[in-house]
């Protein structure tokens, strides 16, 4: 396997889960093709039955960029983020997987940095971090920043994960590593991303970080209510006793 790897051609499969992202998915695909040159890749859109016509737009994009570069692998209805990655994984032909959000909070211009970092360090996982020099967040109010910092300090004090950004979801995985880690993850939402990286870290996989910026265009804090905080704390406790 090790011998094969070096001769094997490297291909990147970018899995993008969508729900009502008809405009964003088009913009995202354009930006991916703009910034990813000279590497072999495919974009796998896992759409959860969006009523806004996301899938029609993806089919139009297939006409522009080719069906071998853009794969539409829809599911009948909203079934959650974790299972979207598992669903996408079944259809990948690459040996490295990138997972990113469709809402443009993750900018494709960072993809070459992920790839470069992986090639330089032979890492199993390269994770985007917002909390180092060169990274950053835009569009958060003070309350959102406070919750984020509090959550991060708590997680670092309790879990010692060795990664600076636990809940970020812009990551590059070696395919076998993603398959291994995802099969042992059960959480949902923010906790899912944290569980993935903590389990990977405990299993001893080689994790590297690259700075990314995160532009939140969905203003407001609706995503982070009291129930999310309770879910997060439950998730922390769960990771504390199971990893």
């Amino acid at each position, binding site marked *: 396997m090790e011998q094969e790897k070096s001769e094997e051609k490297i291909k990147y499969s970018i899995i993008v889960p969508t729900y009502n992202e008809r405009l964003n998915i088009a*913009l995202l695909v354009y930006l991916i093709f703009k910034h990813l040159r000279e590497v072999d890749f495919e974009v796998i859109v896992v759409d959860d039955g969006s009523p806004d*016509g996301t899938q029609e737009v993806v089919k139009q994009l297939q006409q522009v960029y080719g069906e071998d570069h853009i794969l539409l692998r829809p599911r009948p209805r909203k079934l959650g983020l974790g299972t979207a990655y598992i669903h996408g994984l079944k259809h990948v032909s690459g040996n490295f997987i990138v997972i990113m959000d469709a809402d443009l909070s993750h900018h494709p211009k960072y993809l070459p940095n992920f790839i470069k970092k992986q090639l330089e360090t032979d890492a199993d996982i390269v994770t985007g971090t917002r909390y*180092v020099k060169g990274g*950053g967040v835009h569009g958060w109010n003070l309350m959102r*920043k406070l919750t984020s910092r509090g959550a991060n300090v708590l997680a670092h004090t309790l879990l010692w994960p060795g990664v600076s950004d636990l809940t970020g979801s812009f990551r590059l995985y070696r395919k076998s590593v993603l398959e291994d880690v995802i099969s042992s993850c059960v959480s949902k939402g923010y906790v899912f991303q944290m569980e993935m990286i903590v389990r990977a870290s*405990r299993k001893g996989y080689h994790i590297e970080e690259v700075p990314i910026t995160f532009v939140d265009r969905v203003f407001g804090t609706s995503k982070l209510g009291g129930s999310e905080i309770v879910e997060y704390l439950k998730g922390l406790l769960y990771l504390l*006793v199971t990893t």
Partner: protein
Amino acid sequence: MKHVLKILTLLVAISAFWIGLLETSLIPRSNAWLLPIYFVVSLGCYGLLMVGIGLTRFPTCPHEALLLQQDIVEAKDFLMQKGVDVAST
């Protein structure tokens, strides 16, 4: 080893050290009794301090938001020419 066990081991080690201090009376007993309170308070202070430092140094990127707007305009122009439906809803 489960992570919670590591933390518990650490706590047990600290407790053992504390009990040792109590028993050997290296420092006055009344002071030794207060040590756990100091420990908890300093842990809380550490947490607040880290959150505070994190907040004041929170990295922001307003420039990136502008760049993204430019990218969006550029992408829309290109996609519209190619016949992709990018009309805003």
